[in-house]
């Protein structure tokens, strides 16, 4: 399965901010984490991630600095700011709305009618 480009682009910001809200991180680790969490379905390119990080930095949602963690290479770490946390909360609210609405439509409330129009992976 391939997630369309528009959807990847739209969801990239909350994902990056969400990962950075857990802990400070650097580009390669963020990419690995996204890949892990999505079970390899979301395959981001470097051309997507780094310009996005730089944009978030320009907007003040994240800050960056070069750090040398013991036993590792010097890396550019990103840290979420207060404005980034606020942005994350806002994005989360919007995504919750979108996801809830989709669930309502697709699964239906108390409606047992099977949804023939939606092909589910694996089922004939």
């Amino acid at each position, binding site marked *: 399965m391939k997630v369309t480009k528009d959807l990847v682009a739209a969801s990239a910001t909350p994902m990056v901010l969400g990962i950075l809200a857990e802990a400070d991180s650097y580009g390669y*680790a963020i990419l690995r984490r996204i890949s892990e969490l999505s079970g390899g379905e979301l395959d981001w390119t470097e*051309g*997507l991630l*780094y*310009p*996005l990080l730089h944009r978030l930095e320009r907007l003040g949602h994240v800050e960056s600095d070069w750090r040398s963690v013991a036993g590792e290479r*010097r*890396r550019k770490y990103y840290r979420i700011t207060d404005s980034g946390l606020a942005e994350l909360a806002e994005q989360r609210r919007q995504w919750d709305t979108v996801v809830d609405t989709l669930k309502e439509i697709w699964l239906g409330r108390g409606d047992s009618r099977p949804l023939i129009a939606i092909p589910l992976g694996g089922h004939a």
Partner: protein
Amino acid sequence: MTDGQAELQAQFAQWRHYVQRRRELTSADADELEDHLRGCVDELVGVGLRADEAFLVAVKRMGSLDELSREFAREHSERLWKQLVLTGDIDSPAGARSRRDLLAMIVCAAGAAASIKAPELFGLSLEQDGAFYAPNLALFVLPWLAAFLAWRRQAGKAVIGVLAALFALGAVAANVYPLGDESQSVVLTGIHLPIALWFVVGLAYIADDLRAPRRRMDFIRFTGEWFVYYVLIGLGGGVLIAFLFGTFEAIGISPEGFIAQWVAPCGAAAAVVVAGWLVEAKQSVVENIAPVLTRLFTPLFTLALLAFLVAFAVTSGGIDVEREALILFDLLLVVVLALLLYSISARDPLAPAGVFDKLQLALVVSALAIDVLVLMEITGRITEFGTTPNKAAALGENIILLANLAWSAWLMLRLVRGRTPFAALERWQTTYLPVYALWAWIVVLVFPPLFAYL
């Protein structure tokens, strides 16, 4: 294993080299991406790949640099516009050097502005003593530009001596001859002395390497860029003056005298040095504009000249050769020569002859054809009515330009046919430069006594 490591480092170094050639990617980006690439390689080595295999896979995963830089450019579009950093970093030696340049420029520009006003101390004024100012104008300003360049090139004592002697000679030519206000020679000196002195500036420009033809070509480039910058500064100055005039007028103060006496002359004089400094400061940062204009106008001028030739053949009437017409056709040749020079200055010497070279050949040949027609008319006139300083100067210039263009056309024809390398054309143009200087000095120094101060 260490062998593999060394090889890997070399591969990383090469990859970095490619990344750093991209203007969209700064060296901080390169560091970040390299770290990413190394992370990817480490992981692949961890699952059992050899170092060189891992590198190939990691680079492949990153995708093409073209795509990557395109994505970066979307976020950092400002990086595609080269910015001129005039004062540089405070700490770096290059920054210290450019700040010294800035200081020297300010001193020289102030000197030029002060020089243009200095004669007022002796009771001369810009408005009333045009006969004094007209031939001397270049003498107030160009020595300062030459001084700035000589300082920047750390010219030797001998060169400085020659520069000073030539400017002194210019001052003698402008002031010693007893020329009347209305004489043709005053006008001729007014036109030719700046040209002669500009070549003295050229001497200061190439002071660090007098013999190298490359430096002469650099001076041609400098001249074109200087002209473009001077015009741009002039336009900006015009806007400034318009606002100065309008705003002060609105509160009932008339700034007319102040503008005409101070702002305009001092600004114009200082801008000569400022434009020279700008060209020096920006030469490696901003693309040259003169060759771009050349590309734009060569086809248009070729078309115009060919149209003129066709129209001339169809109507088969003679050319009305007045004195102005001769000057006009001189200027036409100058423009054609400039178009030629500035495309030469920007051309890759090793590139084979292309369509543009053929177009230029057409331009030069049609200009030559027109000029021959004009010359045939004019020599008839001169033999009939005798000569004057104006006619002699215009005719001399025409012949000098004609000789240059004719030989250039020959070299270009051979270039288009692949018989001569481009370097021959370049060398011809740089070798010819002193001829213009010599002629300008002849008009300034020899013509007035030759024509009995007419």
